[in-house]
């Protein structure tokens, strides 16, 4: 049976060089091929997102009618007339629009996770550390948000607030950030709370207390660094969800405003041309898939690398 059984470890090998948790983890991460691929793709996404507008000669909103006319008023296929990926039905360069979509997705990833960290970590830490009544109240509060099916609440918020000034800020992106972020911080809060609850009871915290270390120092110096691992993993693995939600919102028309080119919107626009000009759907679909995959692989790799149970084993 090709399974690995029992707790039998490979017998003691050469005395291992002392390494820190992070160096160990980094070593394991680097050996994980999928995680490395994911990391590379993430870096690529960041580069593309930051430098996007400078990478192509065309603006994502520029509608070139001349080129359409030359092509029978159809969207232009890839590799024609200098358009690497072709154009959509309004003559807008697809590559440029994809790059704008990358920007949007990247910004969603960053901002949403920022909100999640900014609200979720402190709330979770306070709840976990103080326990008792404070914990109860905070958890009741998060329970309410948790009970709300997240997509429903997000859709509700985006639709109802679209027509307000708040809803139009940043081409509608501000609303999207806030809506997704407000729903997503809850899981982070629970995670951090759980971490603190279990770490609080460990012996080294007891020891620290016995020596007289102040509460605040215990939390910041002992507990949070140990909780950071799972937090990092959660942030990385939470990004695909946020990007996916934004794409879904744009797909059903309540996300980013036109003419911004969220990948979800591109797919919505392109689906009516699926039969004749599939490139309009295929490229955004690949973009979404690769982005989701890269963060998932990286997140999985981080989780495996930071798993304390695997520390030291081959």
């Amino acid at each position: 049976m090709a399974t690995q059984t029992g707790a039998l470890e490979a017998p003691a090998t050469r005395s291992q060089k002392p390494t820190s948790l992070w160096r160990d983890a980094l070593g394991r991460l680097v050996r994980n091929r999928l995680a490395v691929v994911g990391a590379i793709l993430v870096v690529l996404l960041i580069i593309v997102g930051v430098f996007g507008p400078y990478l192509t000669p065309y603006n994502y909103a520029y509608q070139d009618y001349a080129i359409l006319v030359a092509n029978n008023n159809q969207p232009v296929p890839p590799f024609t007339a200098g358009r690497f990926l072709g154009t959509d039905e309004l003559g807008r360069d697809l590559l440029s629009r994809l790059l704008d979509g990358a920007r949007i997705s990247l910004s969603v990833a960053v901002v949403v996770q920022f909100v999640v960290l900014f609200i979720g970590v402190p709330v979770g830490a306070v709840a976990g550390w103080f326990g008792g009544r404070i914990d109860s109240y905070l958890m009741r509060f998060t329970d309410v948000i948790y009970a709300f099916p997240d997509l429903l609440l997000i859709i509700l918020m985006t639709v109802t607030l679209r027509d307000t000034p708040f809803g139009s800020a940043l081409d509608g992106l501000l609303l999207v950030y806030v809506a997704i972020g407000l729903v997503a911080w809850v899981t982070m809060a629970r995670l951090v709370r759980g971490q603190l609850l279990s770490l609080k009871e460990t012996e080294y915290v007891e020891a620290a207390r016995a020596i007289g270390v102040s509460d605040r120092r215990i939390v910041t110096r002992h507990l949070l660094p140990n909780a950071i691992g799972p937090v990092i993993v959660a942030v990385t693995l939470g990004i695909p969800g946020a990007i996916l939600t934004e794409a879904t919102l744009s797909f059903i028309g309540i996300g980013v405003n036109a003419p911004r080119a969220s990948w979800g919107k591109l797919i919505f626009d392109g689906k009516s041309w699926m039969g004749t000009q599939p490139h309009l759907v295929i490229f955004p679909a690949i973009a979404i898939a690769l982005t989701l995959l890269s963060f998932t692989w990286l997140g999985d790799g981080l989780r495996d690398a930071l798993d304390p149970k695997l520390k030291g084993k081959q």
Partner: protein
Amino acid sequence: MAAYIVRRLLWMIPVLLVVTMITFALMHAAPGGPFDSSGPGGRRLPEVIVRNLERQYGLNDPVPVQYVRWVGNMLVGDFGPSYSYRNRTVNDILFQGLPASVQLGSMAFLLSVVVGVPLGVIAALRQNKLPDYVATTISVIGVATPSFIISVFLQLIFAVNLGWFPTGGWRGPEYWVLPTIALSGFAIASIARYTRASMLEVTRRDYVRTAQSKGLRERTIVVIHMIRNALIPVITILGPIFAFLVTGSLIIETIFTIPGIGAFYITSIGTRDYGLIMALTVLFAVTIAVMNLIVDIAYAFIDPRIRYS
């Protein structure tokens, strides 16, 4: 155990109340009302008529008053009239749309478990060999492809090009196939991944070695000793999976034009149909909460360490 169930059920009530309050508040906080564009051609109705309608439906009262009135009605099972579908009550619309949604959801749930679990088990048993790569690839596709993209591709390939299935509607078994697959894609992938991870964990356990030392067959060890233990943690994700299926149905029903209640949700927000939105929100939230409770009970029941302690 019974006390636990009762406590959970009781706890749902205040939570649901707050959920409805938030929804109500959001609806009324948004500019506009249900009668803004309900004249012929979507034009605004004359002021007079709008005001009359609003008075008729009690929309001029303060929001808290309206809310309390709504709660009172809900408790007796009356969700009020629909603002976007004249002459129909919300209850009517719910009853009409529920069967399709429930059917879609159940089929997707079954498919997710029936395909996801074996996929994960096989991938774990044949780790790093061909079956693992195939199963992992399928999982990867399911995770990385949003359901709306899967829908679009399914429609293109199987409905438009091959003509095997219709592109939309809900008039018979052939209409069920594509939407169910599209809806469950992500769930299958998640369950498969989780099952695989859990099985791999279990293979490293000491009791597997004990089972081997007894000279049991591999199949016995896998089925009786490993799978039972591996599936217990998998049950915990069934709650979120179910919630995902419920919210995912909003999208799928819209894309495949299925006459279920999910499709109503999106349109009714746009038309500010307060009655319908509130009812749908309550329905979705209650369903998910109850399913989570069932999953938690199942978990406590199936794990002997919890059942007998």
